[in-house]
C-alpha cells in the first residue's frame, strides 16, 4: 500500500504544440473615425487615442475621441433618423436587424479574432461564446420587431426616441448587441459608446451596419473615454440611457440625470455567491466554480467570485478545484488551447494585483496554479483565497479578475445570510442534487440571476439584471424589450 500521500501530476507529459488562430484574414485600419449618420467622420476634437493588444502590449490602431460637439452631432443624426425609423413597419425593421445578424455570422471569424486581439480574451471564448451570442441577440430581437403588440397586449407599445448607450470592455461586441438589438426592434435610434480600451469590434460593427444598408443615423457609434460618456448622459435630447459598467459610474449617471425625465437602466457590478452543498455533483460543481470565476479572466459582472462550500465537503472540493486549476492553460489568447487569456489593461492588472496584496494582508490563504505566464503582456495566474472571511475586502468588493474568495458554511440559513450580506445582487449559483433545495434558495437569494447546477449561462431569451447596487432594469428576453418601449 502506498505510504506517501496520493497526488496527481498534471505536468506536461504530453505537451500541446502551439495552435494559433490565423490572423491574416482580418483587416484593421491604422486609424478609426466616428460613425455618425451612416458614415465615418473625423472628430471635431481632432484627437485620437491608441488601442493596445493587452497580450503583447503592442499598439493596434488609433481611435477618434469624440467631444461634446461630436456627441451632439451623433444625437442630432439619431433624432433626425428616429421619425422615419420608428414609423417603419415592424416587419421592415426586422428585416434590417436580421440582416445585421446574418452579416455578423458571416464575419464571425473576423469579429472573434479582433475581439481577442483588442481585449485579451481567449479565442476559444470569442469564437464559441461572444460572437455567436451577439448574433443570436440580433436574431432574437429581429423576431420581436413586428410582434410588439403581441409581446405587450393592450399596451400600445411606442419607442422612446434616442437611446444613449454606454458599454464596458469585458464583452465589447456582445454588450453592443445586447444594447442595440432591442433598441432597434422597439423602433428607437441609438448613440452607442464602447469602452476606450476595446473600441475595435464596435467599429467593425459600425462597418457591418453601414454595409447592411440600415438607414443613416439609426445607429451612431462614438468612441472615447469617460468624458464622451458624460456628454451622452448629459445631452438634453436623449430619451433613455442604458449603461453597463461599474457601480461608481452608475451612481454618477443616476445623479446627473435625476429630474430630466430620461429613462434609465443600469447593469453594474456584482460579487456573486456560488454555493456548493454537500449533496452536489462535486466534479461538475468544480467545473462550475472554474467557469464562474475564470471565464473571461474573471472580467464578468456576474462572475462567481465568492465561493461558499459546505464545510463537510470543503476539503474534497478544494482538492478538486486545485487539481482542475493545474490543467488551465494561461497565455497567448490567440492560441486555440488557451483557457485564460490576458487581463484587459495595465490598469486592471494593477487593480487585481492590489487586491491580491490586500487578501494576503487580511490573512486569507493564497493559492495560485503552478502555470507560468508570458513575460510580455498583462497576465494574472488563476488565484484563489482560502479561509476568507465575510468581512474581508476581497469578499466584499468587486475585483473583476481571476481571483476567487473561498468561504465555508454549515447550514442553509447561514449561507443565505452570508450570500445576501453584500451591497451587490446580480447573480448567484446553487449546486445541489436536491430540487427542493434549489427552489428554497432561489426564492431567498437576492440576486437577479440564479443558476442551478450550472453557471454563466446566457441566452437572448432570458432576462438578465440585478438587485441593489448591481443596478436595475433587465436586458434580454421580453423584459429587455420593455426597457426600450413606452408601455
Amino acid at each position, binding site marked *: 500500500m502506498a505510504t506517501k500521500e*496520493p497526488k*496527481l501530476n498534471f505536468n506536461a*507529459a504530453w505537451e500541446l504544440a502551439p495552435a494559433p488562430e490565423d490572423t491574416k484574414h482580418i483587416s484593421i485600419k491604422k486609424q478609426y473615425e466616428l460613425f455618425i449618420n451612416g458614415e465615418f467622420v473625423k472628430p471635431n476634437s481632432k484627437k485620437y487615442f491608441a488601442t493596445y493588444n493587452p497580450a503583447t502590449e503592442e499598439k493596434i490602431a488609433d481611435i477618434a475621441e469624440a467631444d461634446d460637439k461630436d456627441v451632439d452631432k451623433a444625437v442630432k443624426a439619431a433624432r433626425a433618423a428616429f421619425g422615419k425609423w420608428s414609423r417603419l413597419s415592424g416587419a421592415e425593421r426586422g428585416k434590417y436587424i436580421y440582416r445585421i445578424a446574418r452579416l455578423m455570422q458571416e464575419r464571425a471569424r473576423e469579429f472573434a479574432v479582433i475581439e481577442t486581439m483588442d481585449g485579451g480574451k481567449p479565442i476559444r471564448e470569442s469564437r464559441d461564446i461572444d460572437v455567436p451570442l451577439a448574433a443570436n441577440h440580433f436574431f432574437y430581437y429581429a423576431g420581436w420587431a413586428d410582434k410588439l403588440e403581441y409581446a405587450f397586449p393592450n399596451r400600445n407599445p411606442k419607442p422612446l426616441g434616442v437611446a444613449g448607450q454606454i458599454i464596458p470592455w469585458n464583452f465589447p461586441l456582445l454588450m453592443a448587441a445586447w444594447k442595440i438589438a432591442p433598441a432597434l426592434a422597439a423602433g428607437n435610434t441609438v448613440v452607442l459608446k464602447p469602452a476606450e480600451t476595446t473600441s475595435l469590434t464596435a467599429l467593425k460593427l459600425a462597418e457591418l451596419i453601414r454595409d447592411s444598408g440600415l438607414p443613416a443615423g439609426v445607429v451612431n457609434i462614438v468612441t472615447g473615454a469617460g468624458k464622451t460618456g458624460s456628454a451622452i448622459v448629459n445631452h438634453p435630447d436623449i430619451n433613455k440611457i442604458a449603461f453597463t459598467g461599474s457601480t461608481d459610474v452608475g451612481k454618477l449617471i443616476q445623479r446627473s440625470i435625476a429630474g430630466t425625465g430620461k429613462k434609465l437602466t443600469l447593469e453594474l457590478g456584482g460579487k456573486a455567491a456560488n454555493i456548493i452543498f454537500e449533496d452536489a455533483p462535486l466534479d461538475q460543481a468544480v467545473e462550475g466554480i472554474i467557469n464562474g470565476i475564470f471565464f473571461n479572466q474573471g472580467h464578468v459582472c456576474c462572475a462567481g467570485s465568492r465561493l461558499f462550500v459546505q464545510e463537510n465537503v470543503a476539503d474534497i472540493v478544494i*482538492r478538486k478545484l486545485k487539481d482542475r486549476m493545474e490543467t488551465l492553460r494561461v497565455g497567448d489568447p490567440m492560441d*486555440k488551447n488557451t483557457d485564460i487569456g490576458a487581463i484587459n489593461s495595465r490598469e486592471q492588472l494593477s487593480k487585481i494585483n492590489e487586491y491580491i496584496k490586500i487578501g494576503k494582508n487580511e490573512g486569507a490563504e493564497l493559492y495560485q496554479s503552478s502555470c507560468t505566464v508570458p513575460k510580455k503582456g498583462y497576465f494574472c495566474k488563476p488565484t484563489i483565497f482560502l479561509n476568507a472571511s465575510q468581512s474581508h475586502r476581497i469578499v466584499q468588493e468587486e475585483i473583476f479578475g481571476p481571483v476567487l474568495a473561498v468561504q465555508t458554511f454549515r447550514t442553509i440559513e447561514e449561507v443565505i445570510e452570508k450570500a445576501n450580506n453584500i451591497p451587490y445582487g446580480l447573480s448567484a449559483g446553487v449546486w445541489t442534487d436536491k430540487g427542493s433545495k434549489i427552489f428554497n434558495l432561489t426564492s431567498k437569494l437576492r440576486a437577479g440571476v440564479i443558476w442551478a447546477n450550472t453557471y454563466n449561462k446566457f441566452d437572448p431569451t432570458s432576462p438578465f439584471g440585478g438587485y441593489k447596487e448591481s443596478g436595475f432594469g433587465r436586458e434580454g428576453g421580453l423584459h429587455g424589450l420593455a426597457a426600450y418601449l413606452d408601455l
Partner: protein
Amino acid sequence: MALKTIIPDFRKTSPVDQVGIEERVARFTTRSIKKSSKMQGLKMVLSMIDLTTLEGKDTEGKVKQMCYKAAHLHDVIPGLPSVAAVCVYPSMVKAAKDALKGTDIKVASVSTAFPSGQSTPEIKILDTKFAVEHGADEIDMVISRGEFLKGNYNFVFEEIAAIKEACGKARLKVIFETGELSTLDNVRKASDIAMYAGADFIKTSTGKISPAATMPVTLVMLEAIRDYYYATGRMVGMKPAGGISTSKLALQYLIMVHETLGAAWLSNEWFRFGASSLANDVLMQIAKETHGVYQSPDYFSKD
C-alpha cells in the same frame, strides 16, 4: 497520511450531473492537437490498443493473423510501437499466447459468460480459471447487470471479488456494459463497486451493445478512478471499448485522461482502447503526418 480502505455505502455514491459532464467533454473536444503533439499522441494511442476479435466465427487461424498484426502494425514505417494486448475469447487464449511468444504484447481474455454474464457463479469462475491456465495475462469480466439494476450491490461486489481471486496474477478488467446501465449515476456506482472489490481496470462495454464507449461515460469513470485513488492511494486503469474508431476521437480521449488523471495514466499500463478498427485509422494518420498525403486504406493490412 495513512490511507486505509473503508468500503463505502454504495447506495450513496456521489451524484453525477449529466449536463455538466457533457459540457466538460465538449471542452476536451475543442483542444487543438497539432504537429509534434499529434504524432506523439497517435503513437501513444497505438501503444494503448487492445486489438480485439470477439466473434462466434473466430478460429485459431484468424487469431494467429491478428496477433501478427498486433506485433507488426505497419512495418513500412519504422519506429512504431506495437499494441498493448490482444483480446480474445478463452478458447483462443492458447493460440494467441503461442502466436505472441517473444513479444511483450499481453493476452487478454474475456470471461464470466461474456458478453451477457448470464450464468452461474461456478461457471464464471471456471471460465476465468480456464483462461488464466491457458496463459491469459488479463481477464475482462462482465458484471451481472441484472443484479446491479435490482440494487443487489453486494452480489455484484462479491462476484467481482471472487473473480479477482480466480485471476491470480492476471490483471482484472471489469466491464460494466454502460449501455445497459442507463444513467451516469449508475456508471459512477458501478465504478466504485468494482474498484473497491479489487478491479485493476474498469471498462465501459463489451462492444456488443450500443451505445458502447462514449466520452461522457468515460469521464464519469475517470473521475471515479481519481476519487478512489485519493481515497486509497491505489491506481486503477481505464479501458473504453467499442465505438472508438477514429484517431481524432482517440486523441480527444487522451486529452480527457491527461486533464482528469494527469500524466501517470498516459501509458498502456493504466489506459487502453478496446478497438478493432482504430489501429488502421491511426496508422493512416501517422502515414499522412510522415508523407504529407493520405494513402488509400488498401495500403494498410486489415489484420
